[in-house]
């Protein structure tokens, strides 16, 4: 089981993601630097969270135009499983690999807390170990997580079941339209989400609801 994480200057959740992937697979993920133009064949590529390039211009805007993102784009077209968390989600949106955008939180405040997510589609490779309607716990930590897309795009995503996680029980921390927390592309091999499932892996984290997400993405059955 091979995984890779993309490393860009300014990301700060890469260590957490390495620990999470090691915990799940028993193997250290490959680390792919921003200047790389090819990525080895792996079962999962993750773009972790943080503040790539200091959030200059717009969150994820500079990262989305780096050489390594062209390599990610090629992998995406070949159907490789890709997850972008937090800044990784922002980068995938800026790269045009997922629809919509993330704006400043409606409260204008950085939010760092635990929220609840509803699994609204358990029929994707990222959510197959959950069940539809399941409420899971997950931490969030961001300043620009306010998901927005025009009405037509949101309708199309809803029709195609691309919205797989929504903030539940009035815990929407950022003003996201329709409580959208996590979406997949039409082909179903790319997931972007603001919350941090990699921080809910081990018992010591205070919750383990994130484990099923990575096990799903890697096609691992749950113990």
């Amino acid at each position: 089981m091979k995984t890779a994480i993309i490393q860009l200057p300014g990301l700060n959740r890469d260590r957490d993601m390495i620990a999470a992937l090691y915990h799940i697979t028993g193997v250290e993920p490959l680390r792919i630097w921003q200047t790389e133009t090819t990525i080895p064949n792996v079962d999962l590529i993750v773009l972790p969270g943080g503040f790539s390039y200091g959030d200059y211009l717009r969150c994820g805007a500079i990262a989305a135009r780096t050489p390594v993102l062209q390599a990610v784009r090629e992998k995406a077209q070949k159907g490789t499983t890709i997850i972008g968390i937090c800044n990784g989600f922002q980068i995938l949106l800026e790269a045009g690999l997922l629809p919509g955008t993330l704006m400043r939180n409606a409260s204008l405040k950085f939010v760092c807390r635990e929220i609840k997510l509803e699994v609204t589609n358990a029929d994707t490779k990222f959510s197959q170990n959950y069940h539809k309607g399941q409420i899971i716990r997950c931490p969030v930590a961001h300043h620009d997580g306010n998901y927005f897309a025009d009405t037509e795009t949101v309708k199309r995503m809803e029709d195609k079941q691309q919205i797989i996680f929504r903030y539940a029980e009035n815990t929407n921390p950022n003003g996201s339209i329709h409580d959208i927390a996590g979406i997949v592309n039409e082909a179903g091999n790319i997931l972007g989400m603001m919350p941090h499932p990699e921080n809910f892996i081990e018992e010591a984290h205070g919750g383990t609801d994130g484990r099923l997400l990575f096990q799903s993405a890697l096609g691992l059955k749950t113990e």
Partner: protein
Amino acid sequence: MEARVTVTLKNGVLDPQGQAISAALNNLAIKGVQSIRQGKVFDIVLDDMPPETAKQKLEKMCEQLLVNTVIENYTVELL
């Protein structure tokens, strides 16, 4: 040659920063402001080239990097 690109939020896109600035003006007792929407300005120095070529180049910059066309509009002017 010099150019200026102005980026503004599309109508209907919520602008909490603009709202916060508006509230701060109110706190300063500067009255009469109906609304504020925050945008960005890029001042760009280009090599000398025909104005049409420059405009095309600026449009390309906007579409590929400077502007998030999901939520933003832009205007391009040669100075």
